[in-house]
């Protein structure tokens, strides 16, 4: 039962409630970094990594600090603070201990600091009253869903290079259209929501 519940959360957040295509979180990086598959993949990995860790830390903060003192209204601001600190901390840790990973994540790590997908998922965890494991699974699923969406977008944009796009639609306009169509396609998964 427990496992089935976790699986339901995972699938729901990864596909049916995809962070980008259904919840419309983290859109700036979605259009900004999806110009090549390589950078899209790096961004996806970074976001997954940060969301999982942020979910864990913010769960502790929520459960042991905010709820006992009835300070739930401070959630947003405290989570922003925690995520920003956390990303800085991770960056320093990686720069010192894992230079290879730092070279791979490169500039994407600081970008994630202000990514609303991260904050959004931690708030969802708290609002849904998820326990620790559920929060982690929710974070992981959201991150992988983000990676899926951004890599799909990068793939389509790669094909766009060879397409004849009308002049007025070149650049961002056609990307927005594609994003909208992908969101529509993902809307079809709504029927699978297991409640």
């Amino acid at each position, binding site marked *: 039962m427990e496992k089935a519940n976790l699986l339901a959360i995972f699938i729901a957040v990864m596909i049916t409630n995809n962070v980008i295509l259904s919840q419309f979180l983290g859109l700036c990086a979605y259009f900004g970094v999806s110009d090549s598959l390589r950078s899209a993949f790096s961004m996806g990995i970074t976001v997954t990594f940060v969301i999982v860790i942020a979910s864990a830390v913010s769960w502790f903060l929520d459960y042991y600090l905010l709820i006992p003192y009835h300070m739930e209204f401070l959630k947003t601001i*405290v989570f922003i603070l925690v995520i920003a600190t956390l990303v800085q901390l991770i960056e320093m840790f990686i720069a010192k201990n894992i230079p290879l990973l730092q070279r791979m994540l490169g500039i994407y790590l600081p970008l994630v600091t202000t990514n609303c997908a991260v904050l959004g998922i931690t708030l969802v965890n708290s609002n849904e009253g998820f326990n620790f494991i559920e929060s982690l699974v929710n974070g992981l699923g959201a991150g992988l869903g983000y990676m899926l969406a951004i890599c799909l977008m990068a793939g389509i944009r790669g094909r766009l290079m060879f397409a004849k796009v009308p002049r007025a639609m070149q650049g961002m306009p056609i990307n927005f259209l594609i994003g909208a169509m992908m969101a529509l396609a993902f809307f079809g998964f709504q029927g699978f929501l297991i409640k």
Partner: protein
Amino acid sequence: MWTVLVGTLILCGCGIVAGVTLVGAARVFAVKTDERVETIEALLPGANCGGCGNPSCYNYAVKLVSGEVEPNRCVLSKQESLQAIGDILGIKVEAALRRAASVCCLGGMVAAKQYEYAGMPSCRVAVLYTLGDRQCQWSCLGFGDCSKMCKFDAIYNKGRSIPFIDADKCTGCGACAAVCPKDLIKILPVGFPYVVCSTKERGKAVSKECPIGCIHCLKCVKGCPEGAIKEIGGIIKIEYSKCIQCYKCVEECPRKILKVLSTVRQEEGATA
């Protein structure tokens, strides 16, 4: 009152804990960076053109400091700034040969057609269909994928034609050479002769496909006093370390396929 107090305390507490943690972490995880990297990066052009084989000027600066590469690999920098970089690193900088891109195809649209191509106007797409619509498989397809890649406006196409390269503007970064699906663009030293045809066929087979292609008569090979020109694997190759720039090969060539790569080029590719 209680809510305000506790809320303020919690927020301040979080802020202070975060600040202290970060300061502590900055001490613990401090990474020693070489100041020279920043100084050198400031001296580099900052165009991130990739001409030196590194993704950005920063990466090149890092490699310079660690001694992996020499300063003259940068194709954009002026001699003075290269000298300044050499002074910082304490090494002598030799002037590198100026290099520029050149399209090694003379015929292009003149070569005989094998079918009418009506697909997307892109060399990389056209090449998927029997290596393009020309009978000569080494012919330039002329859609100008290379000119779209150039960051310095050094290449342009007039309609469908062999791209014209402005050697004055060309920095030899190689972005065009990387994109050409037929590898016709070579980065070659300025002021030296080069073969403006890439065919591996010889004699009649060439004439049938392209009236002005290289037929491999090997007059240039025989005519070179230094023995710098050789035919290797069907391609005429010039060894630039041996070349003395006497231009005998250019005179010898009966089809005027050998040319001197100069910074002032008048002739343009034949148009369709």
